[in-house]
């Protein structure tokens, strides 16, 4: 979408005003360094060439450690006083990592970094996860409530023994947490906080934007500005591609003013060279324009396709069907930067594979768009897609899966604690409410663990094609199972230790089931015979940079990468298109250099089409035009 570029553009454009400004990214896959062309670290650093502008990236792990350090001893004391747990138990629980805490800490860290700055520009993670970042204040409130429950037991005992109670450091910590949550919530709703939403002049992106804007409105947060990025300017000469693209965009944009009424709408042009560095960003800022109703244009008469030279192999088609281990493969996951076309590529691949075997196409991105790609509605129950035999589609409703787990968990905890007096300690409440502290993102892992269990069962020959959330969060999805398993193991250890008091029962059964599922998920993800990743990118500099980081991260996690799909390659015949096509060719060459050619690793080019493929038939035909790059 160009979120980082737009955030950096606004920051550069306004940095000449008096005062100090901070540009900070909360995206775990931040590209601020690449966009600004300066090294950006976790401490704010002056951006050369932009007066008064500093930049920083929020790094979740150290930020959380910094936040926790002064509070840890007190948290432990509250837990020991309020439950049957001893020092050793509590210490063990507090050493566990909290998966997903990055999104919660992100907001707290931004506020900490913002001290001493007059203006702060925040570049957030892609849609689905930004919505969760904004849920951070509520999570802090829930943590405060849980601790308060534990502390109330201590207060009651203390009052009974001493006749009265005086608030202590534990109460102060609880009050601080509650206040921190409330002040973050207020900050998000404060009129001085402007939220700009970056989108593209395409129906899919605009649909996602509308969903996000309404989700934010439901949370009482108002998006004040819409930035429509990469709008195609009229071509410098006759060009079928540019003409089709302009028609496509104006049709997509026509309802924008009505749908986003009352908000400032700004458009930024699509420029041949991605703006990098302060000078280019400032120049881009000058090119942004206020919203103008697009002129009425007739629809595109015929599909315009591109291919170009682009090192393509002519001797082999259907690179998808020829993927390594195609016969044993059970799980194919698509990963990549936000906005590169992961969903479209995953859908096209699924359709192609469904010609020879049953396929389940699954989306784990909280901002689902499979429905938009196929032009029909899907939900948490797998359903056949129109015009596609052998293909079922499911958009995982992680919150529904999490709600189910929550119900099971609460029933199990309550059953376990019926054996001991309910008034004894805050254990029941603490254990019951523990699940409400599950940070955002856990729900996706829970949801996908079911899928892994299906793969582990080995039954059937259905292949699961998964469209994941953008890079940073897809990686988190891969790291979370082991962290979550640590939690289930810690709880099992406690249950064994106190089994004479609470008994094993339903809670043990639940933990065992969860632990097994997570183990199956971990095993399935790193099994080269059954599972492979496809990295999706666009032939442009920033996506290539992010793909390099993603490939390294996937290697580090021990998962197999079967290939890279370079999506939307090729342009038209005008001077501007030819310049862009040259830049794309250079980027594809860079993608080829990312890792050595090898058996079982393919670089596939998916040609740009206008209008972009939509619906089963168009997607299938498009996938038939994908070609491998010569190695």
């Amino acid at each position, binding site marked *: 979408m160009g979120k980082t570029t737009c955030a950096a553009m606004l920051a550069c454009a306004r940095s000449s005003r008096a005062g100090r400004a901070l540009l900070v990214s909360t995206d775990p896959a931040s590209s601020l360094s690449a966009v600004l062309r300066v090294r950006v670290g976790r401490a704010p650093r002056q951006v050369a060439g932009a007066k008064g502008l500093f930049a920083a990236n929020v790094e979740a792990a150290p930020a959380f450690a910094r936040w926790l350090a002064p509070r840890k001893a007190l948290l432990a004391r509250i837990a020991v006083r309020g439950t049957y747990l001893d020092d050793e138990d509590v210490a063990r629980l507090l050493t566990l990592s909290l998966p997903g805490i990055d999104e919660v800490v992100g907001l707290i860290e931004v506020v900490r970094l913002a001290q001493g700055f007059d203006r702060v520009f925040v570049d957030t993670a892609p849609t689905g996860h930004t919505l969760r970042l904004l849920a951070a204040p509520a999570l802090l409130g829930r943590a405060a409530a849980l601790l308060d429950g534990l502390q109330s037991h201590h207060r009651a005992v203390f009052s009974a023994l001493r006749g009265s109670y005086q608030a202590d450091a534990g109460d102060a910590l609880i009050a601080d947490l509650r206040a921190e949550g409330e002040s973050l919530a207020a900050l998000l709703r404060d009129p001085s906080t402007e939220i700009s939403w970056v989108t593209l002049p395409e129906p899919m992106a605009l649909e996602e934007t509308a969903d996000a804007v309404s989700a934010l409105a439901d949370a009482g947060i108002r998006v004040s500005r819409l930035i429509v990025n990469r709008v195609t300017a009229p071509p410098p000469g006759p060009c079928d591609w540019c003409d089709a693209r302009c028609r496509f965009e104006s049709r997509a944009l026509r309802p924008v003013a009505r749908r986003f009424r009352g908000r400032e709408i700004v458009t930024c042009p699509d420029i041949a060279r991605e703006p990098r560095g302060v000078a280019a960003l400032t120049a881009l800022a000058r090119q942004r324009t206020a919203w103008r109703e697009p002129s009425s244009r007739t629809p595109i008469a015929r599909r315009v396709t591109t291919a170009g030279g682009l090192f393509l192999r002519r001797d082999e088609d259907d690179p998808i069907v020829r993927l390594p281990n195609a016969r044993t493969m059970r799980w194919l996951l698509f990963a990549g930067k936000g906005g590169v076309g992961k969903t479209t590529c995953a859908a096209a691949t699924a359709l192609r594979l469904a010609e020879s075997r049953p396929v389940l196409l699954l989306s784990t991105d909280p901002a689902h768009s499979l429905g938009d790609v196929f032009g029909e509605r899907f939900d948490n129950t797998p359903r056949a897609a129109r015009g596609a035999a052998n293909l079922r589609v499911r958009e995982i409703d992680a919150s529904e899966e999490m709600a189910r787990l929550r119900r099971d968990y609460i029933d199990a905890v309550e059953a376990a604690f019926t054996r001991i007096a309910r008034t004894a300690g805050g254990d029941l409440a603490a254990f019951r409410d523990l699940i409400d502290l599950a940070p955002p993102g856990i729900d996706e892992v829970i949801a996908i663990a079911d899928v892994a269990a299906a793969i582990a069962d080995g039954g059937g020959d259905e292949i699961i094609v998964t469209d994941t959330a953008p890079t940073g969060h897809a990686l988190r999805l891969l790291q979370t199972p082991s962290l979550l398993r640590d939690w289930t193991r810690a709880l*099992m250890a406690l249950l064994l230790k106190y*089994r004479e008091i609470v*008994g*094993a*029962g339903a809670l*043990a059964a639940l933990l*065992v089931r969860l632990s*097994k599922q997570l183990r199956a998920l971990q095993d399935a993800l790193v099994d080269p015979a059954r599972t492979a990743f496809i990295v999706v990118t666009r032939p442009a500099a920033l996506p290539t940079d992010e793909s390099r980081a993603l490939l390294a991260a996937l290697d580090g996690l021990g998962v197999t990468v079967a290939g890279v799909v370079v999506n939307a390659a090729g342009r038209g015949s005008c001077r501007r298109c030819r310049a862009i096509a040259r830049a794309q060719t250079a980027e594809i060459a860079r993608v080829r250099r990312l890792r050595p050619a090898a058996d079982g690793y393919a670089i596939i080019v998916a040609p740009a089409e206008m209008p972009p493929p939509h619906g089963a038939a168009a997607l299938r035909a498009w996938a038939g035009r994908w070609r491998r790059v010569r190695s």
Partner: protein
Amino acid sequence: MLIIDSLIVSGVRFVLDKIAAAVDTELNDDTVLRERLLEAQMRVELGEMSQAEFDELEADILARLRDIRDRQRGGEAAVVAPRDMKVTGIEATFEGDEH
């Protein structure tokens, strides 16, 4: 003296009742066995028990669960049917000096 004796007798009766109940539970209540199985499963997940040890224990527990089910289906309780037994009295002999 009689009061003390009676106290001792009822105490012993209480203990024996408990033992009878425990035997009953052991022989006819599958909850205990299921809990034991779950505990073992947790130990496997925690790496405290090997899969082979678990398999052995599981086979044993499943066999006992089957026994219980068979008995319940057959409508008969365990051979030693503690539910049908009632501790009606205690015969005690005291030896040595009485104080």
